[in-house]
């Protein structure tokens, strides 16, 4: 993002976590409230990134292992004659999906609680910041009109 920009910038989805990273703008005259908001957002971003990166990586890995073990059980190789990766059809993958979901259920529950809390806090802080800014702007306007 350009140096002169006064806004946050959001980027393309991360290839592991599928989340879009945000670069936060730090204004020179940042109030404590605004700093709290920014830090909360940064923390949430870091947490989300960490969770999903690990989770997606685990998913991919376990999926490969599952395919490999199933193919071996069927007596097939990982790659066929043309060099393409051999695959399983959707019905065979269904067992894996069911298992994976069950295994990660508690992890998801914890993440959900965490995410909802963070989301509410951040939005509430945003509301506070917006209110403060609006009041400041009104006061500034009144001052200018007075002059």
């Amino acid at each position: 993002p350009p140096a002169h920009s006064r806004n946050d910038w959001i980027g393309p989805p991360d290839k592991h976590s599928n989340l879009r990273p945000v670069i936060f703008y730090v204004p020179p005259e940042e109030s404590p409230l605004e700093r709290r908001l920014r830090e909360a957002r940064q923390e949430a971003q870091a947490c989300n990134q960490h969770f999903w990166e690990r989770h997606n990586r685990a998913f991919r890995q376990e999926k490969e292992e599952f395919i490999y073990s199933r193919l071996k059980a069927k007596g097939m190789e990982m790659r066929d004659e043309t060099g393409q990766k051999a695959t399983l059809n959707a019905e065979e993958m269904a067992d894996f999906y069911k298992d994976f979901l069950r295994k990660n259920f508690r992890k998801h529950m914890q993440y959900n609680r965490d995410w909802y809390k963070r989301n509410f806090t951040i939005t509430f802080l945003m509301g506070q910041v917006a209110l403060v800014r609006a009041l400041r702007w009104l006061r500034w306007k009144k001052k200018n009109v007075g002059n």
Partner: protein
Amino acid sequence: GLFVWHLKNAGARQVPCQFVHLCRVANDRLITFQYFNFLKRMYVTQYNKDLSQRAKPKSDSVASPFRELQQLDREKKVIHRIRPASPLHQPLPETLSRNELREMMSAAETEDSIMPVRAEPKEDRQWKEMKLQLDDLPGILARLSKIKLTALVVSTASAGFAMAPVPFDLTCFLLASLGTGLASCAANSINQFFEVPFDSNMNRTKNRPLVRGQISPLLAVCFAASCGVPGIALLTLGVNPLTGALGAFNIFLYTCCYTPMKRMSIANTWVGAVVGAIPPVMGWTAATGSLDAGALLLGGILYSWQFPHFNALSWGLREDYSRGGYCMMSVTHPGLCRRVALRHCLALIGLSVAAPVLDITTWTFPVISLPINLYISYLGFRFYRDADRSSSRKLFFCSLWHLPMLLLVMFTCKKSFLEKEDKGDLLGGNRGRAMEIRLP
């Protein structure tokens, strides 16, 4: 680039319709376009009706942008093939209206995914300033409120209104529709507000406004409040309190029950079915002011319809649901998923028979609706027995035209309330005369 631009101008609405034509025209060896969007890394090729899934992992190296372009080229070729097919179908009026509806409904499902995949592959890889663009705002809010789904919800509510055995009141109808639409916008916005990281991870939903940072969560919540509060107020004050209460309850059910439950238990599907069933009940109560058997019957029909519709759709999304942590029957209890879908297809037949019993329609309704109900039940049975992608897709697409057709037939077979009023008049007249005698 130019081609993509042209498509963007032509509007996404055109394409789902044409895509659907392609599905019906080509039988073997068709690359299902929808899957380019639903599952970015996999494509399903149909070789003589045998479907297999091929995992095409995107290589992390420089080759990936090239492959994306390749995908884009392939998509363009698919579009080219689609376009010549459509004029063949234009002259047939029924297919046109059916496909318009189908286009509307499948667009609701696929709009999020179809447009951006073609128009946005390059933009997607750029950094964007997180500043609210005012001229984009209408589009952003439309996507935030899932405007197409909202339109369908409003149309089911108006079906409920139309079926009520009272004289048609235009202002009431418009107020009820507007109120329901606003309530639906609010509920959808809050749903997206809650689900940002999960939406980013699922192919179907990763282009939503909050995921892409086009709008801040604060603004999304304010928008939801500014739709929900006037919407419910309009329903309570402008129509009647019962409808307002139902609207508020539905928003609560959707945002605070269904959305969190999606990640906790498979019971979310049943809750979601109730959410879908309430709008026609709201339409009915808006017209009559009371919860009659007719309202419950219409709600029941929508409730039963949700199951074949959603279960069939979720069958193809199992990977995304599993990875995203969503507890859906299709992942955890596949047998139950198919049984429930079939059960409710059959329930629709039963409900259609109940309609004339409850004096809502004439007896022609179950007779005329029997073919379509039998057809969806047949597809439900095929889905139950075969449990594969093609049967799930057939069932899903059938559900898209089955519902509007059923509601239309129901409306045409509506029991004219004049017949009922005649009977009422006779009694009223007698009573009136009796009263006159008593007065001095």
